[in-house]
């Protein structure tokens, strides 16, 4: 595609990158087909191709974002289904990041929206604050009817009772001879809302000879802030994690850094790019990126011992961050099948469930429409349990599903001798 950047603009590395991304786009429109917002709304402006055009105009003209541009960029879920579809290899992910950062810099949102976004950033990615917020939510639940719609919506996503974090910093030794040593990213939201996933991961890994370390300081990857276009806050959160893991790598050594929240994993795999302009950190950031693996990638290399076969009908929901962000589609299904589950795949498996970081809080209408569509597609295969590899999806889908919704590792932990996930009776 033709671009109109001046030589002076192209001297800016961010714009030079945007230019080369834009040049790869041939405007074929294939991306519109798999974009959840275009599928729902049918407006070119809510498609990847339309957003590419909006970002291009804004960057080329060096204009502040208008309300309309912000609206349409905000509606992007960053699910990256478009990137799986794009035959020309357009790096939409990094273009929309640059576009969002430009919006953050140049556009002043209405105060209510500013307050909401600030709250999301300040609360979700800080476990201590999130715990307090969830406790408040527990108290507020009986009064939900009195709250404004957006707050009521947030309340719906909060767990029925505040979770307990058991997987704190420390080392969890391998049972039997040690095969490898890995760091586990427990996730800021996950560690508070659903630490059972981390507990299942630690049991599953240690049971199969993997020493797991949860590093103090590596509690948040920065993905939630990153999603909001706040690259500086995202980098600040990431720095703490990079330092903690590099200390571990340089100390007792790490064979991998394991992410069991694919939303986090996608960003951590991209740390090298996030810090490309920071000579002091880019080397360490790249070291971390290169070590990160999704839990399913690690499990695929281990000889798992399935001794408690459960022939449940499982529908596997492919989290966008796994299937589009990290291009991991086959491993989780194979693991579940090997474990003896009757694994089904739903229609429209490429479409996002609407969770998308904090999207379900910021864009409740679109998120709810996507959730309902996803829930209907999942229910159509009449599953006994729904599973996915990302905590955001679990919370989102649970709010629209009639059967238990669990993490893939919880099922695999169960099938290798661990406890039954909540809601699933053991030994059925």
């Amino acid at each position, binding site marked *: 595609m033709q*671009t109109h950047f001046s030589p002076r603009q192209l001297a800016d590395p961010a714009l030079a990158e945007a230019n080369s991304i834009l040049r790869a786009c041939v405007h*074929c429109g294939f*991306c519109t087909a798999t974009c959840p917002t275009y599928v729902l709304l*049918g407006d070119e402006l809510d498609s990847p191709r339309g957003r590419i055009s909006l970002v291009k105009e804004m960057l080329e003209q060096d204009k502040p974002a208008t309300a309309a541009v912000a609206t349409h960029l905000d509606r992007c879920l960053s699910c990256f289904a478009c990137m799986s579809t794009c035959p020309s*290899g357009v790096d939409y992910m990094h273009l929309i990041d640059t576009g969002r950062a430009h919006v953050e810099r140049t556009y002043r949102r209405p105060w209510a929206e500013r307050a909401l976004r600030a709250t999301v950033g300040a609360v979700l990615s800080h476990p201590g604050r999130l715990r307090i917020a969830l406790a408040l939510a527990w108290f507020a639940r009986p009064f939900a009817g009195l709250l404004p719609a957006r707050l009521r919506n947030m309340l719906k996503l909060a767990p029925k009772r505040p979770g307990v974090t058991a997987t704190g910093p420390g080392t969890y030794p391998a049972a039997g001879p040690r095969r490898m040593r890995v760091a586990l990213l427990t996730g800021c939201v996950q560690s508070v809302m659903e630490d059972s996933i981390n507990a299942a991961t630690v049991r599953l890994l240690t049971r199969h000879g993997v020493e797991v370390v949860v590093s103090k300081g590596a509690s948040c990857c920065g993905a939630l802030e990153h999603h909001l276009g706040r690259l500086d806050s995202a980098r600040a959160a990431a720095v703490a994690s990079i330092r903690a893991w590099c200390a571990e790598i340089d100390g007792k050594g790490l064979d991998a850094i394991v992410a069991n929240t694919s939303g986090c994993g996608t960003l951590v795999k991209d740390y090298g790019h996030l810090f490309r302009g920071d000579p002091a950190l880019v080397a360490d950031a790249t070291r971390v990126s290169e070590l990160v693996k999704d839990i399913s990638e690690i499990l695929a290399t281990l000889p798992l011992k399935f001794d408690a076969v459960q022939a449940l009908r499982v529908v596997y929901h492919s989290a966008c961050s796994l299937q589009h962000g990290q291009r991991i589609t086959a491993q989780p299904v194979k693991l579940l099948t090997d474990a003896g589950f009757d694994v089904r795949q739903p229609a429209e498996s490429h479409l996002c469930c609407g969770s998308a970081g904090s999207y379900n809080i910021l864009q409740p209408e679109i998120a709810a429409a996507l959730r309902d569509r996803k829930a209907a597609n999942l229910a159509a295969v009449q599953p006994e349990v729904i599973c996915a590899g990302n905590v955001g999806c679990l919370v989102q889908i649970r709010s629209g599903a009639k059967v238990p919704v669990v993490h893939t590792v919880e099922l695999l932990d169960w099938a290798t001798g661990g406890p039954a996930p909540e809601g699933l009776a053991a030994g059925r």
Partner: protein
Amino acid sequence: MTLCMPAADPAVMVRRASIAEALRGLVPPANVITEEETLRAYDSDGLTAYRQPPMIVVLPETTAQVSAILKYCAREGIKVVPRGSGTGLSGGALPLADGITLGLGKFKRILEIDYPNRCIRAQPGVTNLALTQAVQHAGFYYAPDPSSQIACSIGGNVAENSGGVHCLKYGVTSNNILGLEAVLIDGTVVTIGGKHLDAGGYDLLGVMTGSEGLLAVITEVTVRILPKPTAAKALLLGFPSNEAAGICVSAVIAGGIIPAGMEMMDRPAIHAVENFVHAGYPLDVEAILIVELDGPPSEVEELIARVAALAREAGACYCRISANEAERLAFWSGRKNAFPAAGRISPDYYCMDGTIPRGALAKVLARIREMETRFGLSVANVFHAGDGNLHPLILYDANKPGELARAEAFGAEILKLCVEVGGVLTGEHGVGVEKRDLMPAMFNDIDLAQQQRLKCAFDPEGLLNPGKVFPTLHRCAELGRMHVHGGKTAFAGLPRF
């Protein structure tokens, strides 16, 4: 822009705000788009060489809204450009500075699946592939499959009379639709055909199919669905020269075999695609053919053997038969992604669409090679070999001054060559703006005037998609192609621009 479009009417453009206001009274206000940045996103379809932001974009949600919009536009003398998914390659949805772009993206519902009558009733914004996906669990499919089928809309397919790799055996869009609902420029909603073959009276379905948005706005389509063949297998054949591949194509057709699809790609196209799709195409050949046979398993086996033998005789140096469904689909995935994959080897491409007699293939490809040197641009060729529909992709860089103009001149020469060897200007992408000015190379003044009279019968004021399909009077007169007698043109009453 090197393209001459009808001059924008300043009297309309100054009324932009009041027109937008009026439209907001006809559709939900959020469905009327007027900001400059947002209009730019609608400034072209799949043909990016020409760009023009529309005056206003309006996105209706119901047929009644389409009717109200057209009625309003007819009354106020405002031009209307209909748009489906915006994947067209001839610029059929290129906006006008003084026109509204009527987007049908919100018409996304499948209204009815009727197995006893073997048809689907769908809104025009439903994608081609979604039609097949809606019925495949029951063993049916919608046959025409343009390469953009993942994204292109069925309404757009009807407007362009789209083909696809399987139209060699199963026909193009016009052979696979049964009925339409459309809105005329005065707001009248008409129903043409139904769920049955052979509607009475004139073949208005045929008139509407391929009318490129010049006659009416399609608001509903009834398509035929076919039972999926019990077996389908594909051969991937490699040849040491384009000529050898061409000989193979002719031999297959002359042998009385009708493959479900027979596609050819030349060396540059093979390399571009293989990089992205990893379909397993051989990289050391000059041309590949993908030949698909479908039907009962015994017939497929027999025909596969015959095609393989014919290919050997024609000099094939590579032959692989799809061992399973996954491999068959992998063969096709490369072909289906060929156009955009060209974006990996070149920042821009200009996709041509001409049709030639099959026998002329080798000659035409050789002439295109000569032109490459002359125009200083390279070409990747993708070709519906079975039905002679050629898609040369001219690779250029719009950021380099002069390259677009060279690409346009190159394209025009290729299309003239198609007509010269006994072919036609377009196979399936439509005329749009892309081939508009080449129409006189194929049709004489009387032909063109007759076609315009048909247009006038539907749209006397020339408000629906003006500037498309028909060459401008100004250009025609300039080139001496329009007969001017005593200062008067033939059919002086016809609107021209």
